[in-house]
């Protein structure tokens, strides 16, 4: 049957285009899973969305348009998922009775490319990752590789430091709590078992991520970004020192090699590069917590969480924490970081990583 041959040839064409990203579950009638990345994302840190769509055609295809659905996706909220799907389905109806598989895939990639920017708000501060109106500054943000959840770099780093500090506090208080029933200790391990040294969990989906991911951001925030000539105007070098503590610098060096590797292996995240920073600009949300806060923090008691039996009796007052100086460290630097009214909805330009052009 001529029609069937044509369809088979079409499936082959899709396979040829998408290679390993195309899974043919059935050739006729076609049943395909195709994993798609935005066209604008040749390297992982330019990528904020991805999707696997399935196309299931009936024997009547192409007279009857195929069913199209999402198998999996990252970086797309429900609304954007719907949008993506309805675009492809619409296209399928338009093309009714034509061979359309290749075109549908193209359409999907096209739409995905147009959506290749993080959407919505930073889950930590609830301010938009990419402001709608161009009056507002875009803060540098980052993406966790495992789940594509995005955060302002500053917000996730603050969160990270808080976790690290809580851990220290915890181990301090558990050392002082040797007399407690072992049951408690075990449960404590349970609770914080996820936060092993050098690892944390995504605040949104709790998928584990590694220190390296954050180190990378620190790297950018610290030495790297300041070496960019376009950013020269902003940072007095003194401020940078506040950003990373000695130990972080050490760790950073240690991880440098790994980072390189990881970057190449699609390990990471990248804040936007086309920031234009002007001195004296201020953030939409004030983030300078400054020394006063960190001083307060040192007095503050940690509410160390321990566990008992359901609700156990009295807890010992949590032991006082040592130094909690994480609060102020990086914020000063970030608060001077700004982008200026660039075209924030033009993914193609927006996400291009300059270095990349030089071939890596």
């Amino acid at each position, binding site marked *: 049957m001529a029609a069937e041959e044509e369809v088979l040839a079409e499936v082959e064409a899709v396979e040829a285009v998408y290679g390993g990203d195309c899974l043919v579950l059935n050739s006729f009638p076609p049943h395909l899973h195709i994993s798609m990345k935005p066209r604008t994302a040749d390297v992982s840190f330019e990528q904020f969305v991805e999707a696997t769509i399935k196309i299931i055609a009936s024997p009547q295809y192409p007279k009857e348009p195929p069913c199209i659905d999402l198998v999996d996706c990252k970086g797309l909220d429900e609304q954007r998922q719907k949008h993506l799907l309805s675009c492809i389905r619409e296209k399928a109806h338009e093309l009714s009775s034509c061979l359309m598989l290749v075109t549908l895939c193209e359409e999907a990639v096209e739409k995905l490319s147009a959506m290749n920017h993080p959407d919505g708000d930073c*889950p*930590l*501060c*609830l*301010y938009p990752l990419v402001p709608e109106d161009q009056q507002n500054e875009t803060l540098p943000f980052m993406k966790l590789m495992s789940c594509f959840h995005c955060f302002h770099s500053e917000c996730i780093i*603050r*969160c990270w430091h*808080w976790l690290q500090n809580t851990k220290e506090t915890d181990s301090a208080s558990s050392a002082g709590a040797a007399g407690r029933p072992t049951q*408690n200790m075990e*449960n404590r391990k349970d*609770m914080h078992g996820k936060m092993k040294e050098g690892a944390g*969990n995504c*605040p*949104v989906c*709790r998928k584990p991520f590694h220190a390296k991911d954050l180190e990378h951001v620190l790297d950018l925030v610290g030495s790297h970004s300041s070496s960019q000539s376009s950013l020269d105007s902003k940072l007095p070098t003194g401020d940078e020192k506040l950003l990373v503590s000695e130990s972080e610098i050490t760790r950073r060096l240690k991880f440098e090699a790994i980072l390189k590797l990881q970057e190449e292996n699609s390990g990471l995240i990248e804040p936007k590069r086309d920031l234009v920073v002007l001195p004296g600009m201020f953030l939409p*949300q*004030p*983030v*300078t*917590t400054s020394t006063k*806060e960190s001083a*307060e*923090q040192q007095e*503050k*008691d940690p*509410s160390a*969480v*321990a*566990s*008992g*039996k*359901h*609700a*156990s*009796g*009295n*807890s010992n*007052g*949590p032991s006082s924490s040592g130094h909690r100086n994480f*609060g102020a460290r990086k914020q000063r630097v970030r608060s001077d970081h700004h982008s200026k009214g660039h075209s924030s909805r033009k993914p193609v330009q927006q996400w291009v990583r300059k270095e990349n052009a030089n071939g890596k």
Partner: protein
Amino acid sequence: MTSSSASARKALSKIACNRLQKELVEWQVNPPAGFKHKVTDNLQRWVIEVTGAPGTLYANETYQLQVDFPEHYPMEAPQVIFLHPAPMHPHIYSNGHICLDILYDSWSPAMTVSSICISILSMLSSSTVKQRPEDNDRYVKNCRNGRSPKETRWWFHDDKV
């Protein structure tokens, strides 16, 4: 000194303030179903009215939640308790303290007042029996000095309510 009620009274940090204002606006636009925020000018303490979901043991009953935000919200979890009278529930003590992991160990700074409310309502809704936790009396006695639930060492049971 060590009580977190004292620390809760510490003024909100700027970050906390901004975040809460954002949450409040979002709440006004899109409040979680079954909840009503009682308007006050106190950003640091929210009182929220919750109405039991239809078809559950708490249908048509109304309770009040008091949410106190610490200085470093959302890094630190807010303190959430039921005001008197607290609903009869196997995970809710008569003094209003709630045994719910996300309020303590499992708190994440990506959670919001809204998401807490939804969790609490679902905890209420899934209850099959109106009763206090087994250790209610002992626990409440231990809390007489006004201890915050955040100082309690919680042991979370399975989710069978």
